[in-house]
């Protein structure tokens, strides 16, 4: 007997928090109304000033449709630019109760002219509010900051501090110095004071350093992988430079950088810190303690062992209270909430990963 496939309705499914949704401009000029005249002219005349050879795309062209879901293109503009399509294709059918916007480009860290970067960041934040968050209360913005100038960044954070539309501060792990360096500490101080987590989302733009310790990779496959190694070294810097000792209220979400590497990295940090601890007297506890207390990891792109149970073991090592579901909509390697885990999590584990952990981290009702 054939049983018709029945798609569960939002009402019968677990409502989820999606920790990684990417909005987009319908066209570049969408930003102009939010920029002062001077910077609008600058944008038109000079454009962005990046640390890479190509200005129109990254130097490792992405795979499928520039890295976007081919079914997510609206009639006009790129995927992620049409709120109505985002609702119809993702928020409604997948039961997204809260969606975290991850606005990546323009101003955050890739622009070399820091005054321009500050103006762009401010404009992007206004644009997120007007275009997405005000019309769609399920969405939350992230504060884009010109992270390479801490004073500008702190100003932008403080400007958004009382607005609950902004849930976190978006920082690129491809910074110009490792993020544990003191020049970023004012940003962490502001994050702690304003009670916003730092969202470390992988970035396609370089902050001025090669993506590996041996220089630049050749293929996109390698550059894509470097998102994971870059996230590992960024976390290493934050922990071993003592950021979490200095800012005990700081919380960090590591987004789209993989997560199954976390236990091994913690073991490695613990082992060699123990041997070398005279060098880092700022640390009072083993490195893994700080990770366990201060860090959250999002799932997409989820690693897929041949034996799905291995993934469950690794999540247990990280902590079921520290892993948060994300889709990366509308990017090509989108993870679907129904299919992300090939093993069968318990109901409690599902509630935590798909909803409760994010609600606790972001203080959502």
């Amino acid at each position: 007997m054939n049983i018709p496939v029945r798609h569960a309705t939002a009402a019968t499914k677990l409502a989820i928090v999606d920790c990684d949704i990417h909005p987009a401009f319908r066209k570049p000029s969408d930003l102009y109304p939010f920029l002062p005249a001077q910077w609008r002219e600058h944008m038109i005349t000079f454009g962005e000033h990046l640390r890479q050879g190509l200005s129109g795309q990254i130097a490792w062209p992405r795979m499928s449709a520039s890295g976007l879901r081919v079914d997510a293109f609206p009639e006009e503009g790129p995927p992620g630019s049409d709120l109505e399509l985002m609702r119809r294709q993702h928020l409604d059918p997948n039961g997204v109760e809260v969606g975290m916007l991850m606005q990546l480009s323009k101003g955050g860290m890739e622009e070399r002219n820091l005054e321009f970067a500050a103006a762009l960041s401010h404009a992007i934040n206004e644009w997120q509010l007007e275009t997405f968050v005000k019309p769609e209360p399920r969405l939350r913005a992230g504060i884009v900051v010109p992270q390479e100038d801490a004073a500008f960044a702190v100003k932008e954070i403080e400007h958004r501090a009382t607005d609950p539309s902004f849930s976190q501060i978006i920082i690129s792990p491809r910074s110009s110095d490792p993020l544990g360096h003191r020049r970023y500490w004012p940003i962490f101080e502001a994050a702690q004071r304003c009670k916003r987590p730092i969202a470390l989302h992988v970035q396609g733009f370089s902050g001025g350093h090669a993506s590996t310790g041996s220089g630049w990779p050749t293929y996109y496959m390698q550059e894509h992988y470097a998102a994971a190694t870059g996230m590992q070294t960024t976390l290493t810097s934050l922990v071993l430079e003592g950021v979490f000792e200095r800012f005990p209220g700081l919380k960090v979400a590591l987004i789209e950088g993989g997560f199954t590497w976390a236990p091994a990295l913690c073991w490695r940090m613990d082992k060699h810190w123990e041997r070398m601890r005279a060098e880092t007297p700022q640390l009072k506890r083993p490195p893994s303690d700080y990770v366990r207390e201060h860090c959250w990891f999002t799932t997409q792109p989820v690693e897929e062992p041949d034996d799905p149970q291995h993934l469950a073991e690794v999540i247990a090592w990280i902590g079921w209270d520290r892993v948060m579901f994300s889709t990366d909509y509308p990017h090509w390697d989108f993870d679907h909430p129904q299919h992300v885990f090939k093993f069968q999590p318990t109901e409690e584990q599902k509630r935590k990963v798909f909803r409760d952990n994010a609600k606790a981290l972001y203080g959502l009702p």
Partner: protein
Amino acid sequence: MKVPIKGAVDCDLHPAPPTMEALLPYLDEYWRDQLVDRHIARYSFNLTSYPPNSPLSARPDWRQGSGLPGGDLDMIRRQALDPFGSRFAICNVLHGAAALFNEDMAMALCSAINDWVAKELLDREPRLRASILVPAHNPERAVAEIERVAADRRFVQVLMFAMGDTLLGRRPCWPIYAAAEKHGLAIGIHAGSTYRHAPMASGWSAHRVEDYVAQSAAFESQLLSFLAEGVFQQFPSLRLVLSESGFTWLPSLLWRTSKSWRGMRAEVPWIDRSPGEIIREHVRVTLQPVDSPPGDTTALLRTLEHIGSDRMLLFSTDYPHWQFDGDAVLPDGLSGETVQRILIDNPLETYPRLQDGAQISDNAASNKEAVR
């Protein structure tokens, strides 16, 4: 736990690099003059990656006497060979020559070190084998040095650093792999950096311990480079050995590459099967350091299960680096079969030249003739 059986092959042992004075007799007149006249010979060629007094660089009980740790053959025998019952040990001399920008000088020094290793170590202790030092930043020179030294079959591997000028899978490096494959030499990538690039994708870390932790990310990047460029397809019998790399990061890499390849295979069409399979077949990792929670046998055993192969691990002490205490060089809880694979079978399969070494050590009298 202790090594329970005789005949282990220690795949990563570090005799102290020779002093410049010791090297002078192995250099030609031009380079002797250069090193002396320019006072180059008066200064050390220590690698920034291994500060001599750093705790990682030598175990406290292996810092004996006035000499350098690993700087004396009797000490190596007493501390590194006898206690573990090693039948062979592969010497990886971590010398700073590779960090020189001057490729001519780097080449001259690498050659001198290789000759010094043969005469001062290999000739005097039949259990020792060695890696060939090459100036990896000039593949043509590196190949010339491999061709010069390869006839001495006590050299079993070509040695390069985890962080250098470029990712090593790149096509300009391929002549090195052609030469290695032809001569039955493994390619060894060892922890350490020539600091041509920042050790982190976000720049220069402040502390030594951060650099050391970041070595595992560098090994991951090198592995991706070999994989994506198609080195293993071009050189099907090549073995890549990651030394002092740690290995508990491997499952995540195997899972991530096997998945992402499904979406990206069009970019690298020569990768004709799952990266996990290719890596398990071609790549080996040395045992020390064992980066797993002390006292938690389960975490390590589960990690080995996640790696999904008992063929990848090669026994190593990493002498005199401080990675373990006493004689507990093996992790607890390993089965007898796994121990046998790690200690003996895997190394012998990885380094075909050890097989003819087996005959040599059984017949010490003809030792010199057979290998020269």
